[in-house]
Each structure stands twice: as C-alpha cells, then as structure tokens.
C-alpha cells in the first residue's frame, strides 16, 4: 500500500515538472491550403506566413544589426 502511495506521489511530481507533451503528433501544416480564420483575404495560403517571416527577417537584418552595434558601443 505504501509503495502504491509512493508511486502516486512520484507520478504527481513527475507531471508537475513535465513540459506539455501532446500524445498525438501534429499533422504537418499544409502550406498550399487556404488559411483558416476570418482575418485572411480569399487568396491567402497558410504558407504565406512562413514566406513573410523569411522576407521580414532578411529585410530587417541590416537595420537590427546596425542598431545592436550602436547599442554595444554605448
């Protein structure tokens, strides 16, 4: 009985420190499918968000690097 209790306590402690793990693995996002939700325009695809993120990263890189270099000098 005591060992069962110890197992239960150990399980509780384990879950309280565990990170969220989904039992079912997610489906990979279908990038060429239309976006979900009401915010989109009709032509928007799920993959547009990834493309926009890559473009933004490229475009912002010079200015953010310049800003970081300026801050490092101070």
């Amino acid at each position: 009985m005591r060992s069962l209790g110890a197992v239960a306590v150990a399980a509780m402690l384990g879950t309280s420190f565990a990170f969220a793990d989904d039992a079912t693995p997610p489906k990979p996002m279908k990038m060429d499918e239309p976006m979900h939700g009401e915010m989109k325009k009709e032509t928007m695809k799920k993959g547009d968000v990834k493309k926009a993120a890559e473009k933004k990263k490229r475009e912002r890189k010079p200015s953010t690097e310049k800003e970081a270099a300026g801050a490092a000098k101070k």
Partner: protein
Amino acid sequence: MKKRTMETSLAGHSPRLIRSVERRLFLRQGLSLGALAMLSGCNLTDDESVQKVLTRMSRWNDRAQGWLFSQSKLAPEFPETAITKPFPFNAFYSEDEVTIVDGKSYRLELSGLIRDKKPWTLPELYALPQTSQITRHICVEGWSAIGKWSGVRFSDFLARIGADTTAKYIGFECADDYSTSIDMATALHPQTLLTFRFADEILPPKYGFPMKLRIPTKLGFKNPKHIMTMDVTNEYPGGYWEDQGYNWFSGS
C-alpha cells in the same frame, strides 16, 4: 455680427486649451477623411496610392491610440465562474496542425536593446515570480472569451533582462512563423503578462506552449503564442497581420 473663427473664439485662452481644441479638430477632420475613404468603395482601396494613404491614416491612428493609452487604466478582470468553457482555439491553421515546441530544448532568444541577452530556458522562466489574471480575450473577428492566464509580469521580466524601456517597440517571432510587435507603454502595463499557464495548467500547445504574451488591453492578434524570440528596438518591426493592413496598435 462678427463671424467667429477659431482664432477669435480662442483668443485669451491658454495655449494648452488651444492645442487641445486644434487636436480635436484635427481628429474630426481625420475621421471625416477616413469615412470618405471607406464610402468610396472597395475597388478604390486596391489602388496602390490609396493603400499608401490608408496606411498613413492607420499609422496616425496608432499614434492617437498611443497618446490615449494609460498604464493606470486596467482591463476588467472576472471571477472564475465567468471563464468561457471550452475556450476557443484560433489560428491561421487548424487545431491538428498546431506547432509543437520541445520544452526540454526550448530557449527564449533575446535581441536588440537588451543588456543581458542570455537565452532563457523554461525552468528558469517558470522560477520567476508568477501572477494570474482572468480577463477577456477580444478577437478582431468579432468574438470574445474569458480565460485565466498565469505568468510573469512582462515589465518585471524587461527589468530583469535590462531592456531599454525608452525604446519604442518590442517585436516577437513565434514557432509557427507568426510575428507581431507592441509599443513599450503596453509592454510596461501592469496587466501585460508573459504567460506559461492557462487555467492553472502548463499552456497546452493549442493555446501557445511554451509561452504566450497576454495583453488584455489589446486585440487577440496582438497576443503572440509559441514565442521564440523577442527584440527590443526603435526600428518598427510590424507583424504578419499588421503588414497586411491591420491596425498596428489595436488596443485601448
């Protein structure tokens, strides 16, 4: 009878009052111009020059919302009985496509005008003093829901990492490639939380594991989920929906 102009009717008043009246007049004219643009039909808004004017108006709107924003004005908080069950899932993808972040290898990356850019692990973030709030999430789509979030007050986190709080913006990049950014005044608002729990449980993936920035003074799309990087900057970072023409400030 002498015609009353703005100059004659304000003669003798303090410069502060005159500035206030001028600002109101400018606001009214701005709103009239906005209404006119809306009335003129959808085809017009596809034109590039019209888009530029609308973008400029939206940025002016951002500034006006920034002036009106007060860090002492709090969003309403609710009792546990008011919590919406089930809390809606909303993203640009379906629930079975939710991004799964590995909590064990997760690191919150910091960049820009921050003194200590050391990446943060989840146990380190979970060890910070936490607070909870029950507030209403308001979506730009027209629905709202009340939920309970817990995490660290964002202003405390910014102080801890030595963020330059005189900077204008904080940008966020998320694991699902979503991005958004907020103004520093909102970042320092006492109800803006970097949250790790929803309804007293570790944030489930569908609500933004490992962390979501909860801002009850802003619309839902300004509350990024699955945050991976944070950038303190004076260079306007925009965001995914903001770059599509949604109003950037989107708050009260």
